[in-house]
């Protein structure tokens, strides 16, 4: 009897709540990065079911996300690259909230060669600079004594559209190669000296898959889903690290982020960390809607467990604490 009574109350409360919230279904709009979009879509669907807050997200690219949040035409923006000083001055007070970390892998298509060839940072840089042009170059074969490489040419592929993925990759190469820094530099879109461009991660993935001798950089998730082999890259501590969620987390844990999180983190000092990784950010104003604050708190706690299923690394504990503190600045 008692149980039934409570059950009735619970049902009534739920009904009322759903009716009330149904009448006032909350909507949030966001736009930006494509890199974390699959995870974000999953988050928004899950969160929408749990709380009846509907979040619309347009994966239009990091630059688009920055533009839209600067114009305040969305509730939040999303970007893989932190905003630069110029962009920041146009959006005063904006807060960067890191959500997850991701890895950019060097994927390739070499007939007869499986996944996990070893590459050093200078070899990767020189391949994309066009200084190493054959797969059986001594500098590559020396690193992989057991593997037989064909003598075919190397065809480097890059993103033709501006992207946070490119930013992570070129920031990394600028950090490890003086040549790269001087002749190409880092950015969401750079002046490539060799190879061909494909549009988006799918475009580059398709080019690599179809071209014998092709090599390119794509997100870990795309490489895994498209079954494209990718390389282990030597990190700052001299260990060859195969990209995975674990090695991305390890890399992320060892970084020291500035107070406003605005830094592309590459070339980690962690012994087991994969060196080409980066955080992705949500961009919000301190006077954002309270529903957005609640969502961010959820994303940084419960939401984190979804990350690794989709090949993103959850935030390390210390970064997560600081990100939550940043979310609390929203009032």
């Amino acid at each position, binding site marked *: 009897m008692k149980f039934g009574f409570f059950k009735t109350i619970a049902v009534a409360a739920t009904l009322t709540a759903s009716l009330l919230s149904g009448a006032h279904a909350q909507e949030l709009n966001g736009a930006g990065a494509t890199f974390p979009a699959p995870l974000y879509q999953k988050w928004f669907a899950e969160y929408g079911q749990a709380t009846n807050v509907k979040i619309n997200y347009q994966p*239009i*690219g*990091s*630059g*688009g996300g*920055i*533009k839209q949040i*600067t114009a305040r035409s969305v509730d939040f923006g999303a970007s893989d690259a932190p905003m*630069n000083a*110029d*962009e920041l001055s*146009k959006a005063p007070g904006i807060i960067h909230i890191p959500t997850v970390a991701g890895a950019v892998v060097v994927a390739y298509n070499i007939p007869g060669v499986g996944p996990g060839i070893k590459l050093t940072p200078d070899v990767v840089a020189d391949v994309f600079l066009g200084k190493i042009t054959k797969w059986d170059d001594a500098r590559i074969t020396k690193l992989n004594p057991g593997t037989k490489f064909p003598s075919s*040419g190397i*065809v480097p592929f890059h993103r*033709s*559209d*501006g*992207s946070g993925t490119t930013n992570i990759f070129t920031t990394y190469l600028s950090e490890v190669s003086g040549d790269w820094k001087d002749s*190409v*530099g*880092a*950015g*969401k*879109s*750079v*002046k*490539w*000296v*060799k*190879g*061909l*461009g*494909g*549009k988006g991660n799918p*475009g580059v993935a*398709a*080019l690599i898959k*179809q*071209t014998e001798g092709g090599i390119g950089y794509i997100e870990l998730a795309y490489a895994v889903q498209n079954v494209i082999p990718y390389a282990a890259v030597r990190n700052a501590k001299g260990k060859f690290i195969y990209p995975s969620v674990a090695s991305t987390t390890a890399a992320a844990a060892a970084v020291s982020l500035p107070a406003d999180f605005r830094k592309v983190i590459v070339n980690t000092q962690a012994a087991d960390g994969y060196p080409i990784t980066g955080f992705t950010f949500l961009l919000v104003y301190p006077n954002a809607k309270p529903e957005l604050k609640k969502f961010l708190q959820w994303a940084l706690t419960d939401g984190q467990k979804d990350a690794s299923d989709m090949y993103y690394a959850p935030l390390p504990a210390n970064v997560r604490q600081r990100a939550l503190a940043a979310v609390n600045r929203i009032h």
Partner: protein
Amino acid sequence: MANITTEAQSSRKAAVASPKAVPPRGASLGARIGDPIYLGLTFLASLSIFAIIIAIAWNLASASHLSMQKFGFGYATGSTWDETKDIYQIKPFIFGTLYSSLIALILAVPVSIGAAIFLSELAPKWIRTPITFLIELLAAIPSVVYGLWGIFVLIPWVRDKFMVPISHSKVEHIPILGSLFSGDPIGPSMLTAGMILAIMVTPFITAITRDIMKAIPRAQREGSFALGATQWETISQVVIPYAKSGIIGAVILGLGRALGETMAVTMVIGNQAPQTESGISWSLFDPGYTMASALANKFNEATPGISLSSLVEIGFVLFIVAVIVNIFARLLVRYTAKNL
């Protein structure tokens, strides 16, 4: 407005019914008011097109004034596009747009005119209807579908059956021909972009050319046959000369589509300016970049300021190129019509 139209129609009907009778005063009042209003409305409609074009040109020019100021004519004559150094020059894009469209026309025009001749002059009806239907279907396929087909079917096929054999042969050593086929046979290239464009513009040129040939009076052909001309003589000396200016118009329309085509080209052209000093390469195997695909690739991530302004200027230059092509087409049509 509906009222006026019906009044005008009824008065016209009345006029038709009794052509000799002078229309009564009352009915002609409607006609007298209706005509100027009708004239005004249609004039406004035609004016709106003019206004839209001016507005587009003005908006593009004003939004790109930052980059015009900084780069001047160097914008169109330099070959460096480097976001990290804030240098924006588009010669390779202009070249890519014109070259890929030229390749497309070279491939598409003979096929289109051939198909149009067959459909309008030679084909029996049972084959004409399905082919006409298929050509119209081809024109209705969205360009992104052409692009996907290009990536997964056309590129591998062209590379394995055409590019690789040629680059392994001695063609490279023939003086002029060799420079057209130099470079690595990777796949995405000027050639594949031109081929995709050719496939996309063929239905347009074919359909219009066929309609023009159909519109040629029967008496022209009958007269030619009566003089003892063969079918081939009739086609080559009566039908084609008669339709010439129309065919040129059709080709220019196809060219217009090729110049502005974005998605399909972006997917198959390689999106990389040639690595030469001038940013230009005549090799069909080299990747390229067109103005439209540069816009599609770079617009999402452009930051406000000089980078966005330079992108808008690409749109402006593309607009000017389209205007020039159209003026050129007009002159060409007029010239051929005179020389008939």
